[in-house]
């Protein structure tokens, strides 16, 4: 079965329910990951990382926007409002992705943990690739095309975090320990992303 337009999708109640649920998960996960990423702007370990991380974050927010646009086409409301005005209980993102970057806030005494960020983003990008490969065969054509487009760009994001995690895990004792602790944590909490 191929569903070409939003109007066609709306004909089948079961289909539209499943489709919007999937879109909210895809959109909200990318949105919250990009949101947490944006909080590192100017705080990343060095300037080249600041350039890279903010570029990845901007692009990931662009991916969330594409999903919100698909939801808008399906009559769920304006993309901007879906992104910014929904209550916490309506959000479909994984709780693990919400976890704060560290103590303090962006403006006041930010004590953020780079190990959490590297591990979280690495896990997330691995998962996102698998999910996108599946969604690239979606019966809903507008979503299929969006997923194929995102896959073309996401490969750079995954490569970036793979590089970080590989380097840190082979680095100093402190780096190894801190990465390992965050991996153990992710192993316990990441299941939520698959749910």
């Amino acid at each position, binding site marked *: 079965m191929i569903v070409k337009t939003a109007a066609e999708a709306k004909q089948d109640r079961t289909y539209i329910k499943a489709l919007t649920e999937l879109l909210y998960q895809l959109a909200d996960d990318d949105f919250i990951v990009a949101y947490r990423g944006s909080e590192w702007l100017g705080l990343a370990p060095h300037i080249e990382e600041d*350039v890279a991380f903010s570029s*990845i974050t901007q*692009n990931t927010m*662009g991916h969330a926007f594409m999903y919100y646009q698909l939801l808008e086409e399906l009559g769920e409301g304006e993309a901007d409002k879906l992104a910014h005005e929904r209550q916490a209980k309506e959000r479909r993102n994984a709780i693990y992705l919400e976890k704060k970057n560290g103590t303090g806030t962006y403006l006041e005494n930010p004590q953020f943990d780079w190990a959490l960020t590297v591990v979280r983003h690495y896990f997330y990008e691995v998962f996102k690739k698998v999910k996108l490969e599946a969604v690239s065969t979606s019966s809903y054509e507008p979503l299929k095309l*969006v997923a*194929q*487009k995102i896959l*073309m*760009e996401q490969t750079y994001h995954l490569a*970036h975090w793979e590089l970080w995690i590989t380097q840190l895990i082979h680095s100093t004792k402190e780096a190894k320990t801190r990465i390992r602790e965050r991996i153990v944590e992710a192993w316990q909490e990441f299941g939520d992303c698959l749910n």
Partner: protein
Amino acid sequence: MSDHMEEVIAVLKQVDDPELPSVSVFDLGMVHDIEIEKYQIKITMVPTFAGCPALDFIERDVKRAVEQLHWVEKCDVVFSFQYPWSTKAITDVGKERLKKHGIAPPPDQFKPGEAWTVYCPFCNSDYTSMENVFGPTACRSILYCMNCRNPFEAMKPVVAQV
């Protein structure tokens, strides 16, 4: 090709990407389709990177430029994901313009996941190093030429995976 179509294409070759001055949206391969219905025009464009913040500016600039043609009443610009953009869509003129701007064009042959060679846009040497895959915009990387000792940028190769 009709005279009107030629005129519209000539205009599109003059509309630069806001983040790549001197390279037109036409030569970047962003113009997918032009429909002319008497004095009304519809242009379908494909975005380069999904998260590109310049899309609204491009839409505005294209609309404004085409509507300056005296016979045009209205020009609508829409972005579509129906046709995924890849760096293969960049024209030869576009590649030359990128070089003039100090940006190495993407490689002709590229397989995702594999290494690729970037030639310095200034001296054409392949003795270059990648300093940062991510550059000032989503579509660019930062490199350094060991031969002529110049920093430069390059377009990231982006091609379909499935």
